[in-house]
């Protein structure tokens, strides 16, 4: 087998390929029904733009889930950073946009560090900790924001432009998200630290016996997830222009959904950020495609639910088949 057919085979059998295929089918079906879905400048732009923010959250979520944890606070972190972004432009006139980005990322990272520290040192399941910080961060947001809200007139034009502009027909937001995706994928695949995240999720006890730096790696995973949610918060402010105390509510479940649909095993150890990214696109593209295909609004969530359950069932079936195949291979 030469390297090309080997690569082709790996591509065809990869878990991510199925999701990509589903995405292509959804886009194709919607486009056949209504060609402007893809073949119009707005349609094409929306297709790429809408899921970009969720993509960032899904990448962070995938990194955390791979370690057999979960981060439910990302929606709240996003909301808090989005409001912080607006406040910075109002309270510090003339602040450079790049500084706002850095502050947003660092702030999100700090919130992630709190999650990580609680999980790693208090030894409480991440599900409980981040459910707590989901409410706590949102509570701080509500107290801070009150009935106030940030309007697009509060923020500079160049900043808001980032949310809508395109370079060579590709929205800036999408470019940022894809760059993050590529860096994250590279890190997880090629760095020791990245591989250790998989090891920790695959068997936490074995990771301890190996002498891996489990605590440190978990902290990094949560900080990354928080920092990406922080970045997403800044971009949220740029994209939508208005931020109130409820920005990003419910995004955490979409992010988990995207990762799971994209084949990241909920018990850790396997999956990729590529899958999570495609999952994010599929999730939001379906939402936009269903009305075009004549499916009523209230069925959309149902379809998303079926998709998540379907993905988990598929994972289970594939895992059992693989286990069987590997066991058979051993006995030859």
């Amino acid at each position, binding site marked *: 087998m030469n390297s090309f057919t080997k690569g082709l085979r790996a591509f065809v059998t990869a878990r991510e390929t199925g999701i990509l295929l589903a995405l292509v089918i959804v886009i194709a079906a919607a486009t056949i029904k209504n060609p402007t879905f893809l073949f119009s400048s707005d349609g094409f732009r929306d297709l790429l733009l809408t899921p970009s923010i969720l993509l960032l959250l899904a990448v962070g979520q995938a990194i955390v889930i791979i370690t057999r944890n979960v981060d439910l606070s990302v929606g709240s972190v996003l909301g808090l950073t989005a409001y912080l972004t607006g406040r910075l432009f109002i309270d510090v006139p003339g602040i450079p946009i790049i500084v706002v980005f850095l502050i947003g990322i660092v702030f999100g990272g700090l919130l992630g560090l709190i999650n990580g520290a609680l999980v790693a040192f208090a030894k409480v399941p991440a599900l409980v900790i981040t459910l707590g910080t989901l409410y706590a961060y949102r509570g701080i947001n509500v107290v801070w924001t009150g009935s106030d809200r940030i309007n697009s007139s509060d923020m500079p034009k160049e900043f808001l432009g980032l949310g809508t502009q395109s370079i060579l027909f590709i929205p800036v937001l999408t470019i940022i998200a894809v760059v993050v995706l590529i860096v994250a994928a590279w890190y997880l695949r090629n*760095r*020791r630290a990245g*591989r250790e995240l998989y*090891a920790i999720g*695959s*068997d936490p006890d*074995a*990771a301890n016996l190996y002498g891996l730096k489990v605590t440190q790696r978990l902290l990094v995973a949560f900080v990354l997830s928080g920092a990406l949610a922080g970045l997403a918060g800044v971009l949220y402010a740029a994209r939508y222009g208005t931020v109130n105390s409820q920005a990003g509510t419910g995004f955490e479940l979409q992010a988990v959904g995207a990762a799971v649909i994209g084949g990241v095993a909920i018990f850790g*150890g396997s999956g990729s950020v590529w899958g999570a990214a495609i999952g994010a696109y599929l999730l939001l593209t379906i939402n936009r495609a269903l009305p075009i295909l004549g499916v009523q609004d209230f069925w959309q969530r149902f379809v998303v639910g079926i998709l998540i359950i379907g993905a988990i069932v598929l994972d289970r079936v594939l895992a059992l088949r693989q286990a069987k195949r*590997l066991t058979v291979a051993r006995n030859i």
Partner: protein
Amino acid sequence: MSNSTEPPALELSRIAKAFGAVIALTNGTLQLRKNSIHALVGENGAGKSTLVKIIAGLYQRDTGEFLLEGESVDFSSTAQSKAAGIAVIYQEPTLFPDLSVTENIFMGRQPTRSLGRIDRKLMREEAIGLFSRLGVRIDPDRLTLGLSIADQQIIEIAKAISLDAKVLVMDEPTAALSGVEVERLFTVARSLRDEGRALLFISHRFDEVFDLCDTVTVMRDGAYIATSPIADTTVEQIVRQMVGRDVSALFPKEEAVIGDDVLVVEGLSQPGVFHDVSFAVKSGEIVALAGLVGAGRSEIARAVFGVDPYSSGTVRINGAKVPRRNPAAAMKLGLALVPEDRRKQGLVLETSVARNTTLAIQRSLAKFGFITDRAENAAARIWDSRLEVKTASLDTEAGTLSGGNQQKVVLAKWLATNPSVLIVDEPTRGIDVGTKAEVHRLLSQLAGEGMAIIMISSELPEVLGMADRVLVVHEGSITAEIDRADATAETVMFAATHSAAEVAR
């Protein structure tokens, strides 16, 4: 051969370790030399595993000396002991099932190129090199998921070699291996020895110890007993050192009238767990299931009771067939199982002693579907007082009682069902000597009243002191049936460590 002035590769002297009130080690002493395979033997609970975990850096010693090549060391993590050149292969291999074989070998110390990139090609080549050196064929790219235990151990060894470990500890590596796989492992172990490494080999199988090792250290009750060159010792001597105590005095075994077969088990099999198990227990008889931990004793008991599945065979009580996987039906037919882990499987820790005692007979206490406290307490009082459960009141939470009293509550729960066959799994594990004697007296009394009792125990003195008959289980099969008169520490231990064919010889 190493010369005499060179310090030993690893030296432990007078190591002690306690976990709270439980003393696991009082005197761990061990000296490993280079170019040597050293055996460590002892009964279950003798402290071997604790010693291994101290060497691995998983536990820290309380007192004692730990020298590595003559230098005192203190490991506070497994990473440190690994860095110092100690590799430990645990009984259960610890691999990452979702990652490839190659990644498992190099995890945490992969070769890297620029930008900290892992050099996958180099890593794969090294893995292939390691396997060819070990003379095994394992696909370096496959996931470790689904590998046999033998192959997983080979990967652990490959890991140890790639670390260039000076000391290699193998904790019962052969427990789950077939004959051919054991041979392959031994070949590898010998070549590692000849490269100048020091190996520690823990095993219950004397034939293997004598085949592979050059020196043997015996431990008992958390303490060092003796070290001797293999050539100067015998199986009998080692067993004597392992058991080493006066066995028969403690146990108040009463003579009981032995009646007809009550429980008859025929041809019970479950692939990979136990195989063709047949035995019968008569009324008034105490039959011990002896053997090493992991031999399959508890699994057999659980299958008989219907908690675990079995693929073929039959279980009968007084002639009536007990259905598979149906503990409720087994209870109706008069079977009771006091499980091994009382806190997890025997009690509801958060509820009262009274409720725990009556848990198995709730149905008969209920009137119109309701159970009153009064009925519960009345029923509980009968058994809890007969067993002398020491508690302030019947409302006390079961979890707050001492281990011995908890065990009495579990026993009371099952005795309340008025069983004709009682299976007790490690009835005296972790309870104090006084309560132990009470439990023994109770079992003896119950047998005297005509109950058929199956007792699973890892404590030889208990087995020898209590049982009318001893069934020895080895790797899922009954290898010997020994009458009370013929049962000695040596005969039971021999059967527990050898296959049926070897025992018959």
